[in-house]
């Protein structure tokens, strides 16, 4: 190591670069010793640079007596005792200490996203294939259901779930001839697919058209009213004869 240093031009001693780095760090932390200037906090920590959001970020130490949240008498009320099971499963309920239901206080327009499509790998033989499309006005769910009678399809809204159920008979049907298959590669039986809608999405705005062996579910991107839950409803599927 020491032998290689004597061939390096302009390099004298072993600690010069480290000293230079240390000098820079010292200037950064303690200011420039030549001018005596002491650097303060960086500019993004200077007061007035950015608004302070007290509900986010690490909070400073607040004395318990000084925090007005502890003045709430419900902390001593056993009716408002927090059940830790609620933290594990939000379906059990909401923290009773909260005055507002957090499930309803979220603006669904802020949480609008494309309808979530669960992957069908687990039950791929029972799930029809779905293709998602998007227009400026609506999200489209195009479900492939070849050979399915429209009378055997149903589309239901339960909560924020959109459930498509169809039944395909394993029968070769030409109108006149009806025979069972001896070899199949497609999907038969009860076919089900579940989509997740944005919370509070009204079922009345959902349209469905069954054309040429595939159902197109139209979900308009209209504004969703705040804080509404949708009761269970059936969605009518319109039959449309494809233009030949």
């Amino acid at each position, binding site marked *: 190591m020491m032998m290689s240093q004597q061939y390096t031009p302009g390099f004298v001693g072993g600690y010069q670069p480290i000293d230079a780095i240390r000098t820079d760090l010292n200037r950064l932390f303690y200011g420039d010793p030549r001018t005596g200037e002491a650097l303060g906090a960086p500019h993004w920590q200077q007061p007035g640079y950015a608004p302070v959001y007290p509900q986010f970020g690490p909070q400073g130490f607040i004395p318990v007596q000084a925090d007005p949240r502890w003045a709430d008498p419900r902390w001593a009320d056993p009716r408002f005792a927090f059940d830790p099971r609620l933290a594990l499963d939000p379906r059990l309920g909401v923290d009773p200490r909260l005055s507002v239901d957090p499930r309803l206080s979220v603006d669904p327009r802020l949480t609008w996203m494309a309808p979530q499509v669960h992957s069908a790998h687990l039950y791929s033989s029972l799930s029809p294939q779905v293709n998602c*499309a998007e227009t400026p006005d609506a999200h489209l769910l195009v479900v492939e259901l070849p050979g399915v009678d429209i009378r055997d399809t149903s589309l239901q809204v339960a909560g924020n779930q959109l459930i498509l159920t169809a039944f395909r008979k394993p029968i070769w049907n030409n109108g006149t001839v009806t025979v069972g298959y001896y070899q199949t590669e497609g999907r038969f039986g009860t076919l089900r697919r579940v989509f997740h809608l944005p919370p509070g999405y009204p079922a009345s705005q959902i349209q469905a058209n069954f054309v040429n062996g595939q159902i197109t579910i139209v979900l308009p991107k209209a504004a969703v009213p705040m804080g509404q839950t949708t009761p269970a409803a059936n969605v009518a599927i319109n039959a449309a004869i494809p233009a030949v």
Partner: protein
Amino acid sequence: MLLQSGYIEAPSVDANFAETPEAYLIAVELPGIEVKDISLQVVGQQLAITAFRKPIWTSGAVTAGFTMTEGRFGTLRRSISLPPDANATGVAAQHGNGLLTITIPKTGNGAAHAPGVPVANVAIQAASL
């Protein structure tokens, strides 16, 4: 008598097979494809199905691009070998409800090989099931 499905190219289409004493029946799944984009040919003792599925969603003048697809798009091919007693000249096809239903009548003389057809296009009728 089993109808052997022939050489399968990827992406392929699913087909389902049935049989009556008079004919072999095949139902090819082609959802969302128009009749004019499907061609059915008999080449010798082979049945060649070619279809093109547009990778866009259209309804009238409205067009939308797919953001996620699980199905098959583009050119879809499938060839199916016909059994020896299939009458290659009597192939009939119907399309409706996303299904191409093919009827292949039997010659009736057992294992005797029916004369194949060099190349013949099969007209596909539109059916509303």
